[in-house]
Each structure stands twice: as structure tokens, then as C-alpha cells.
């Protein structure tokens, strides 16, 4: 770290935002996206801006960049960059600041790069523009920047196109591009939300190091309290367009005063979450900012709200030095162990019941046809040799990074996809042998819940029609009986009967996921396969849906297969957890086996990469050694597929493919050099 990276006493803030209000004019209404936000950023400092989707955190960032979407405009307040007012600056002058003095990186690296320009051209562009560099100079600068952000073989990358790079590499390219003119301020808007957890840790560490090296100020916008706890120096919590609380990170996490900050932290899933408790959730959903409520905007969802809260908006005042707050009835510190009532855990059957679902040596290969250039046949082994079984009323959780084959596996379980080999036995029937009507009848008992509640419901069908469709497809009941069943379903998932006549776009993400769950439940299935059921939802809504899933499981004796990249979700729901890597099951066991006694280095690395919402926890990324990304499934590494990223890999790993070995009863892992000693081979025979 350079000595000048730390702010000196006389250093004023680089960026000062005072009373910023931003509105967006839509066809029907004016939305007050940001209202009266105050922020300041010093050199070398990371300010975390945390809040749920739609709270105005991205709009704040875009206001600073002067890049509001069409119809958007700053209605009041000031933004000063090193003393210079930016609000009202003509675009011609603003252009000299953007990418030069303030840079921004965005959430999705897959779409943030121009697909028809080379990496080199794109990284060199700001230098050409702002520094007037010659093509040669700009190219050299691009090369330096790619090396700086830790991209191996940068010269080779310069001539490549974005589609040739993985997500993590593309985000590094984005960072290189943003930092190429050494800006004073970097706005990072959800920089790692679209990335896998192991890659997230690498990218955040890189941003942190570069901020120190270049002496920048960083505004880190995120919804993730874990990311904030690990990487921000100070935190501002936003809700419904306004800042509700700002403090130093340590102080906020231990001594928060605003009920929303408290609730947000309490909702954040943790690995230590007790499975027998319901998750903390905030009732209701955020207000409509086209018609913001009078008074405190959180009042409608706040447990401490009084009449004053509902009528008079609390101003942002300094509660203690460096700790500001907008609340009439502050709380004191985080919630203790969750006070929610204990949930009746599903009774454990006295003796192991017959599995309701058995997956035997399942494999799926996709032929990708001939490649245009080489003419050789290629295939992707999306899933290879996966076996497990699930007992009735239990939950099997499947975790792994994107592209590991977990969604393909899900689709095979519900017979939406035919396996290349191996079989799925569900409720005593082998799915591969069922055809036509038999398969249709069988499908009743196998239902699926999809990740994206925005895509999973037909936008042109009313909710009533969507929920009745399963009955109609199976030819069950008269119209009146179907309607009665649909009303019962809505009661089950906690939605009013009035939704029947409405269309999917009228609902929020959480409500849509409830509708999707109601549809999955319609035919009284025995098994529900949920593919990333909550990853598109905000934390406060996420716990509502997870609680609902648990409640319905207990009530109907449902069997779940829950697939997620989020280890905390699986930890909360699952009785058995399987870890997948490049199409293979590398470890399987009880949640405690996986999370406390992991034997496979990949499992341990995954768990270590999760940022804990605790500023005192060790930042992830230091311990696991997984500083690369998953190799392409087109040609997986020989032997153990994880060996290219494994800190323990030896020559044997490249030659011999490890088989699953037992470590505890019901706990096995496929590794030559596991983190723990396996049970002796003799014990495994039985």
C-alpha cells in the first residue's frame, strides 16, 4: 500500500452530495427515485450504499455520472466533485469528467461490453478520448491495465472479443476500462452480483487493492450486507429513495439505530442460521415511489411505528459523531437471536422410508454440432454420473456455480429433458420408461418452480387462468371445482382472492414467486423441484418465500429438490446437500457434514467465499486459493475435474478420477487428498 493512500487530516471530501433528489417522469406518474440524499466520500475510502432493489441506490450513482435514464432528472440538491458543482453542468463538460475523473462499473459484465469490438479497443478508448493518446500509447496503456487487474496473458486478450471471455474476466476488463484514466471516484454498482461466489471474492479484493493503490474513493452500491461488512469503510443504508442511516461499518453492524437497518441485517441469510427457526422477514413490500407515503416511508412495515411516524417524515440528523439517522423511534443494535417462534420440524421417520425419488448414475450430453471452423464433433457433458435419493418429506439441496449442470439435472428429474444414460425413479416409476398418458399422469406428482418469476408466468394469462391450467391439463374437476381449488391455493400462499382477475405484470417479484409456488402445488404433487427459487428476490422478500416453502412442506409432506448457487438458502432448507462441480457430484452429506466438516476442497472453498455480514469476520478470498474460474465444460480437465483450481492437487489428480468415499455415515466426497481422513475402506463395504 502506498503511503499516500490514506486521507490526511486536511483532505476534504472528493465527492459531496447534498440534498440530492432525482425524479423519473414516466408516462403515468412521476417517480421520486431519490429524495434528499446526503453523502460524502474521501480519498482512499469505500462508502457502501446498501438497500433493496428500487430503493434508489443505482439512481444515486447514475445521478453522479449524469447518466440518468430517459425522463430522469435531478430535481434538487448538489453534487460536488473536488469542489466543482456537477448538477447542471453542460454535457460537453460532463463528458470530460465521465470516465476520466469519475468512472462507473455496472452489474452485468456479460452485457456491459460491446460484442463487436475487441477488448483492446474498448479498454484503450477512454485513454484515447481523455488523454489524447496515440493508438500505440493507448494500446500500451490497455496492456498495462489488463495486467494490473490480474488478467493472465494480457497481450493475447487485447485482440479477443468479449464472448471469448468468462464472466469474471469480463468484469476485470470492465474494471480495467473504468480505471484506465485513474479516476478520483469509482462508482461500483453491484459489481459482483452477476458473478459466482468464488469469483465475487476475487473481484472485490481486486477493487479494494486497486482503490488503495490508486488512491481513489469508491462508492460501492450493493444489496448484500455481507459484501458491505467485508469491504466498506462506512455504510449508508437506503430505503425508498432516502438515506435512513449512515455510520462507520463496524458501528453500524454492532450499534444500528434504524429499524430498517436492523431488519435488513436480520433478514440476511447466514450459514449459522438455525434450521428449526423461521427466518426473520419484513412484512409487506416497499412503497410505490410514484405516490410516496407521508411520514416515514418505512412506517408501514416497521414494528416500532407510531402515529408520528405515519404523519411526519423524520429528518436525517447526527445521532452521534459520524453516525446519522432518520428515525423517530430508534432501536439499539442488531436483533438478538431471532425471536420468531420455533417451527415444528418435520418428524423424522423412525426407520428410513422408501425413497420417493432415486437418481441413478444420471448423465446428460449435449451434442453441439460441428464447429464452423474445425469441423470436429464436440459435446458438452452437462451432467455425468450423478446418483442420489430423497426420502419422502425431505429436502435435497444441490449447490454449485453457474454452468455446473445443476439446472440440467433439475430438468431431467421432472422429465423435461431426457437423460443420455442412467435413470430417474420417481414414486416407484422409472421416468425413462413412461410414455404419453402414463408420463402425463406421473407429471402430476413432479412439479417445478423456476428461478425467474418474471419469465415463468405467461404475461397474457390472468392469474386465475394460470392456476387453473394444471387442472385443465390433467382433466380434473368441473370449472366450479377448479375455481374452488384455486381459491384454496391462494389461501395457502397468502394471496387475496382478488388476484384471480389480474395479470402477472401487476405483481412484485415476491408475489409472483408465490403464484408460481401455488401453481406448482395445484395438483397436490409429491415432489417439487425448485430451481433457484429465491435468487431473483430481495432479501426481505426472500425470507418470506423460504418460510412459506418450509410451512407448506410440513403441512403437505412435500419432498423438495432445491437447487441454488446460494449456500445459505440450501443450508436453511435442505436435509441433505449435494455439491456439484462441472457435472459431477463431488460431495454429499448432511448440512452439518457439508458446512462444518467439508472433506472436498471445492466445498470448503465455496463456503469460505461467502461474505459473512460481520465486519470482524476474516474477508473471504484469502484462504481458499481458488483464484481462477471454472474451466469450460467442453473439455473438462482429466482425472479430477477440480484439480485445475485445487490448492491440494498433485500428479495423481490428473491421472485418476476420484470416486466417492465415505467420511461419516451418509457423508461422502470424491477427492484423492481430502481435507479430512475418510473412514477406512473396510467400514465402507457395509
Amino acid at each position, binding site marked *: 500500500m502506498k503511503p499516500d493512500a490514506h486521507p490526511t487530516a486536511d483532505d476534504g471530501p472528493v465527492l459531496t452530495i447534498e440534498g440530492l433528489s432525482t425524479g423519473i417522469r414516466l408516462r403515468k406518474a412521476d417517480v421520486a427515485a431519490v429524495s434528499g440524499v446526503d453523502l460524502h466520500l474521501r480519498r482512499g475510502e469505500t462508502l457502501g450504499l446498501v438497500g433493496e432493489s428500487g430503493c434508489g441506490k443505482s439512481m444515486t450513482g447514475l445521478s453522479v455520472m449524469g447518466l440518468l435514464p430517459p425522463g430522469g432528472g435531478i430535481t434538487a440538491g448538489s453534487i460536488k466533485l473536488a469542489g466543482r458543482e456537477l448538477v447542471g453542468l453542460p454535457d460537453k463538460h460532463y*463528458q470530460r469528467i465521465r470516465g476520466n475523473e469519475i468512472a462507473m462499473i455496472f452489474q452485468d459484465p456479460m452485457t456491459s461490453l460491446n460484442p463487436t469490438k475487441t477488448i483492446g479497443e474498448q479498454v484503450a478508448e477512454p485513454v484515447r478520448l481523455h488523454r489524447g493518446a496515440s493508438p500505440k500509447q493507448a494500446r500500451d496503456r490497455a496492456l498495462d491495465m489488463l495486467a494490473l487487474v490480474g488478467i493472465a496473458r494480457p497481450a493475447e486478450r487485447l485482440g479477443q472479443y468479449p464472448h471469448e471471455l468468462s464472466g469474471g474476466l469480463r468484469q476485470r476488463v470492465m474494471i480495467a476500462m473504468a480505471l484506465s484514466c485513474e479516476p478520483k471516484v469509482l462508482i461500483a454498482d453491484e459489481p459482483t452480483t452477476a458473478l459466482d461466489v468464488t469469483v465475487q471474492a476475487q473481484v472485490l479484493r481486486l477493487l479494494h487493492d486497486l482503490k488503495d493503490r490508486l488512491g481513489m474513493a469508491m462508492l460501492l452500491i450493493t444489496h448484500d450486507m455481507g459484501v458491505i461488512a467485508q469491504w466498506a469503510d462506512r455504510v449508508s443504508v437506503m430505503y425508498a429513495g432516502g438515506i435512513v442511516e449512515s455510520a462507520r461499518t463496524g458501528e453500524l453492524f454492532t450499534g444500528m439505530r434504524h429499524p430498517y437497518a436492523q431488519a435488513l441485517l436480520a433478514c440476511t441469510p447466514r450459514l449459522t442460521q438455525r434450521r428449526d427457526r423461521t427466518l426473520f422477514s419484513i412484512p409487506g413490500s416497499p412503497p410505490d415511489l410514484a405516490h410516496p407515503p407521508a411520514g416515514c416511508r418505512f412506517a408501514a412495515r416497521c414494528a416500532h411505528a407510531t402515529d408520528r411516524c405515519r404523519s411526519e417524515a423524520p429528518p436525517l440528523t447526527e445521532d452521534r459523531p459520524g453516525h446519522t439517522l432518520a428515525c423517530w423511534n430508534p432501536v439499539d443494535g442488531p436483533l438478538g437471536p431471532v425471536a420468531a417462534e420455533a417451527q415444528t420440524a418435520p418428524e423424522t421417520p423412525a426407520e428410513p422410508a422408501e425413497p420417493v425419488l432415486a437418481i441413478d448414475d444420471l448423465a446428460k450430453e449435449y451434442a453441439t454440432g460441428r464447429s*464452423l471452423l474445425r469441423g470436429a464433433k464436440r459435446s458438452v457433458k452437462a451432467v455425468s454420473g450423478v446418483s442420489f435419493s430423497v426420502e419422502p418429506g425431505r429436502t435435497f439441496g444441490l449447490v454449485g456455480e453457474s454452468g455446473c449442470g445443476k439446472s440440467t439435472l433439475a430438468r431431467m428429474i421432472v422429465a423435461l429433458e431426457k437423460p443420455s444414460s442412467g435413470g430417474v425413479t420417481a414414486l416407484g416409476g422409472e421416468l425413462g420408461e413412461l410414455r404419453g398418458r402414463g408420463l402425463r399422469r406421473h407429471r402430476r406428482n413432479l412439479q417445478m418452480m423456476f428461478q425467474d418469476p418474471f419469465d415463468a408466468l405467461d404475461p397474457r394469462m390472468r392469474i386465475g387462468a394460470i392456476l387453473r391450467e394444471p387442472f385443465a391439463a390433467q382433466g380434473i374437476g368441473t370449472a366450479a371445482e377448479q375455481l374452488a381449488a384455486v381459491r384454496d391455493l391462494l389461501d395457502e400462499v397468502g394471496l387475496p382472492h382478488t388476484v384471480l382477475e389480474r395479470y402477472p405484470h401487476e405483481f412484485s417479484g415476491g408475489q409472483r414467486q408465490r403464484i408460481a409456488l401455488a401453481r406448482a402445488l395445484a395438483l397436490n404433487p409429491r415432489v417439487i423441484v425448485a430451481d433457484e427459487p429465491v435468487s431473483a428476490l430481495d432479501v426481505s422478500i426472500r425470507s418470506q418465500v423460504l418460510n412459506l416453502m418450509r410451512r407448506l412442506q410440513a403441512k403437505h409432506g412435500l419432498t423438495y429438490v432445491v437447487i441454488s448457487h446460494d449456500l445459505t438458502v440450501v443450508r436453511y432448507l435442505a436435509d441433505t446437500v449435494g455439491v456439484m462441480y462441472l457435472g459431477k457430484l463431488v460431495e454429499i452429506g448432511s448440512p452439518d457434514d457439508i458446512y462444518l466438516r467439508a472433506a472436498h476442497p471445492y466445498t470448503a472453498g465455496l463456503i469460505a467465499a461467502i461474505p459473512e455480514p460481520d465486519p470482524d469476520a476474516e474477508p473471504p478470498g484469502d484462504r481458499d486459493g481458488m483464484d481462477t474460474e471454472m474451466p469450460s465444460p467442453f473439455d473438462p480437465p482429466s482425472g479430477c475435474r477440480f484439480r485445475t483450481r485445487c490448492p491440494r492437487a498433485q500428479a495423481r489428480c490428473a491421472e485418476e478420477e476420484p470416486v466417492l468415499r465415505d467420511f461419516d455415515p451418509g457423508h461422502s466426497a470424491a477427492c484423492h487428498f481430502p481435507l479430512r481422513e475418510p473412514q477406512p475402506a473396510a467400514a465402507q463395504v457395509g
Partner: protein
Amino acid sequence: MVQYVLRRLGTSVVVILGVSLITFLLLHGMSGSPGRAILGVQASAEAVAAFDREHGYDRSLVIQYFDYLGGLLHGDLGHSYKLNQSVNALLAENAGRTAMLSAVALILAICAAVPLGVFQAVKRNSIGDNVLTALTFVAYSMPVFLLAMLLIQVFAMGLGVLPAQAAQSSSDFVIFTEPRAMLLPVLTLSGITVAMYSRYQRSAALDQLAQDYIRVARAKGLSMRMVLTRHLLRNACIPLVTLIGMSIPLLLTGNLVVESVFNYPGLGLLFFNSLNNQDYPVLLGYTLVAATLTVLGNLVADVLVAATDPRTRRA
């Protein structure tokens, strides 16, 4: 890439063979004997039969087709008895003028449609966008002959500033030597394509404007104009490239009408006259050439897309 093009060429041959068979059967099956068509209604039955026998039209259709195919393999498209010239010569004589008219109209249409579409996308839902949308819909839904008639009515009959008939010179480059006389045919032909292209260009540009990389480019400090020219344009033109390749049939039919309305001596007029004269060999030859051009147009479009879009180069 070479392999891909070769494979596509292979399938193209099959398509063209199919087209030749279908048009052959249609033309021969629809009316009476070719002899009757050529000699006219007044000719005696004996004369017609004698003509058919002499030129092999009394043989079975299958044999006639293979005979025709044999000619094709030697590059012989047949003989027009009406005009007493080989079809090859007739087509060759007129192809240059039609190609020139189509090319100029097409280039003009692209030059107008690309900026129009991008302008409409950037100024989405503004008055300018709405007016242009209305105009393009009118032009798009208008039959070619009507557009031609309207232009003649206004500029030739009404204002009297432009001639109603195209230049009659036999030179291929008449568009450049007598531009005033060619203005109306070219405008008519581009008019219909510009409407379609600008709609496509507008929606393609809208798609691209919503992409994150546009916002990233702005965040780098590029002006809106630089973003449009350096980043958006190439991406927004990819769908248009495919469209242009596929719009060759549209151009050919456009030619047919425009050339007959403006009396411009080209392939379209030749086809139109042959249709009136029931001159089957010419119709057959023209259809085959048109089919070949269409298939090749698609192939060229796909190759061009691969050149513009690096993502399609390695699949």
C-alpha cells in the same frame, strides 16, 4: 468458413433444381401446347402439332425436363421463338441495366434507412419519430405501382419537372448519364425498401440502445454522437445485413413493376412482355436466374453477418 460456404452452395444447388422443376411443370401444365402459344390462336391445329413435333414439345414432360436440364448444364437457358433469340442473350442484354437500377436504389435505400432508423430510435416517441413511423407505414403498405403512379402524377404531370418515362438508352450506365430521367424509377424502387429497412433499423437500434454497453460507453465519457457511430451502428446493422440479403426477391418484383410502369428496358420489362406473349423459355430462364440470385443473396448475407458479428464466427 470455406467448408461452411461450400456446404451452403451444395444445398443451394438442390434448391435451384427444385425451383426449375416446379416452374417447368407449372408453365407447361397450365396452358395448352407451346406451339399454340407461339403461333397464336389463328394457327391451324396441324401447324401447331408440326411445331410441337419439330421442337420436341410432343415428348413426355419428364424427357422434356431432362432435355432442359441438359441444356442448363451447358449454360443454355433455352430459345425464345417469339423474339427469335437465345434466352441467354436476352437476359444478358438486359441484366446490366436492371442490376444498375437495383443497386443504385438499394444503396440509396440503405443510406436513407440506417440514419432514419437510428434517428427514430434515439428520439423514440418524439414527434419526429411518430411522423416518420406514419410515413413509413404508408409507404410500406402502398403497392409499388401506386407509388410509381403517384410520383408520376405529382412530378411529371403536376409539376412537370421530371419526365414520366425512364431513359431509353441501351447503355448500362444510363442512370449516371441521364439522372433526371431515372430519378422517378429509382425513387419508387427505393421508396418501398426504405420503409421496410428503416422499420427494421429502428427496432434493431432500440434493442441495442437498451443494452448495457451503450451506458458503459457513455460512462467512459463518449458523447452521444460518438456512442452512436462507434458502438451502436455496427451492432444495430447486423439484422439489416440479413434483411438485405433476403430482400432480393422484393427488389426483383419491384423491378418488374417499376420497369413496366416507366418503360425502362431491363429484365423486369422483358419478363413482363414475355408474360403477355406467353414466351415460356424466357419466363423459365428469368425465374431460374431470380431463384439463383435469391439463394446467393441469402448466402452472401450470412457470410456478411459473420464478418460483422464476431460471435457467429466460432460456434
